[in-house]
């Protein structure tokens, strides 16, 4: 579904992505793991067309994304730090997104809006929201249009335990519908019962892309947390 071939991105002297290639197929739940500044968010932004790679290309359903923009209709994106127009209310924001996405084609999925109890706050301005509530709005927006690909950048950061549990259940439900899900997270325990594949990045390089079973047999650890920890230690040696 998403294929990136030798994508390189440089910010000044810093190589944020170095010759990264990957393949994501329908129905997979991939977690992007790596230390801070390893290029996870840059990779996601490249896939979304927000950052334009210096070399290499990315295809979405066999179409090069550099000249296409309609493919983003299939993607629900939840940014790490959601930044929204400050003067808009939640209601206006939702209405505007529905307007942009032309919701004749997609059914609107308002489960998360209900579950996060955002319906009671539709008149609140984005400026006045707390970090966690903004994060809830981001999550609700990502799932709103029933996209076939979900890209979630640190979805549970800043959410309270109950909300993050709601979100996790939602992700599992969507995964069972056969959607492609890309997650980055530092809270590995969140990912334990979610992911089917692991991509490990370091300093802009993609170190490995393995299925979770493969990773388990390679490291001899049952839990994802421990498996990754053992990889990190080996990587540092």
């Amino acid at each position, binding site marked *: 579904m998403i294929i990136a071939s030798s994508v390189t991105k440089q910010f000044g002297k810093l190589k944020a992505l170095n010759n990264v290639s990957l393949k994501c197929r329908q129905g997979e739940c991939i977690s992007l793991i790596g230390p801070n500044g390893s290029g996870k968010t840059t990779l996601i932004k490249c896939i979304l067309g927000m950052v334009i790679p210096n070399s290499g290309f990315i295809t979405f359903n066999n179409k090069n994304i550099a000249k296409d923009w309609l493919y983003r209709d299939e993607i629900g994106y939840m940014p790490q730090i959601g930044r*929204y127009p400050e003067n808009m209310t939640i209601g206006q924001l939702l209405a505007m*997104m529905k307007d*942009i996405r032309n919701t004749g084609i997609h059914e609107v999925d308002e489960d998360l809006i209900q579950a996060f109890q955002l319906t009671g706050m539709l008149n609140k301005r984005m400026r006045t929201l707390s970090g966690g509530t903004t994060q809830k709005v981001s999550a609700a927006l990502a799932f709103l249009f029933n996209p076939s690909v979900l890209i979630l950048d640190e979805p549970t950061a800043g959410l309270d335990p109950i909300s993050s549990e709601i979100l996790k259940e939602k992700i599992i439900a969507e995964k069972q519908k056969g959607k492609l899900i890309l997650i980055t997270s530092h809270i590995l325990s969140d990912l334990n019962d979610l992911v089917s594949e692991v991509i490990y990045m370091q300093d802009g390089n993609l170190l490995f892309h393995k299925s979770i079973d493969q990773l388990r047999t390679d490291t001899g650890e049952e839990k994802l947390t421990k498996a990754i920890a053992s990889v990190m230690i080996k990587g540092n040696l």
Partner: protein
Amino acid sequence: MTDILRSKIILIYTLILLIATFCVFGLEDNASKGILSVLNIILIVLPLFSIIFSTIYIYNSSEFIELLVSQPLQRKTIWLSFLIGLAIALSLSFIIGVGIPILLFQLNIIGFLIIFVGVVLSIIFVSIALLAAVQIRDKAKGIGIAILLWIYFSILFDGLVLFLLFQFADYPLEKPMLLVSALNPIDLARILLLLQLDVSAMMGYTGAIFKDFFGTVTGLIISCFVLMLWSAIPMYLSVIKFNKKDL
């Protein structure tokens, strides 16, 4: 884009223009003298306001732009709709603030020409502002550059031209001056309008050359065309830049 029109600053800008224009016409007994003073407002205040308002608006909408870029929208569409929104808002307030009084006091071809030039100048400075805003990431730096650009176009450029004129006073400079004036939209607009006002007699020999050129219909069309170029080129460059920008 309705949020631009709702913005209080735009309303205040319109009101100030309106009051200023009415005052000027009320103070001068002769309407054509009044129009000369209005011209000064147009040539100084309008570019300043257009360029600064647009730059600040773009920087304040950075989150909004970021949000839109991650949606199924073409980047060109996003950028052009910002540009068109700003241009329409600023032109509208110019038409209401200056256009209406001018048409009340001076309903003739000069009045319409002034309105046309004012609208074009608004568009030009919106596109210059967008080019500056897309080029520079830092907000404070971007606004600084916008102000510098305004100072350059409305003050420094004239100084440079004067300096050149004195340095090369021995040579016949009238023809090259025509070209030089095309390098600054404000100058071009000023000459274009002054010549329609019959005060060009005060401009000496160079004025006569200008009159020969700008006074004719061809000259008028060419200078209007150059003004259009001044709005199209920064617009085009900023779209190209925005298409390649990382957000």
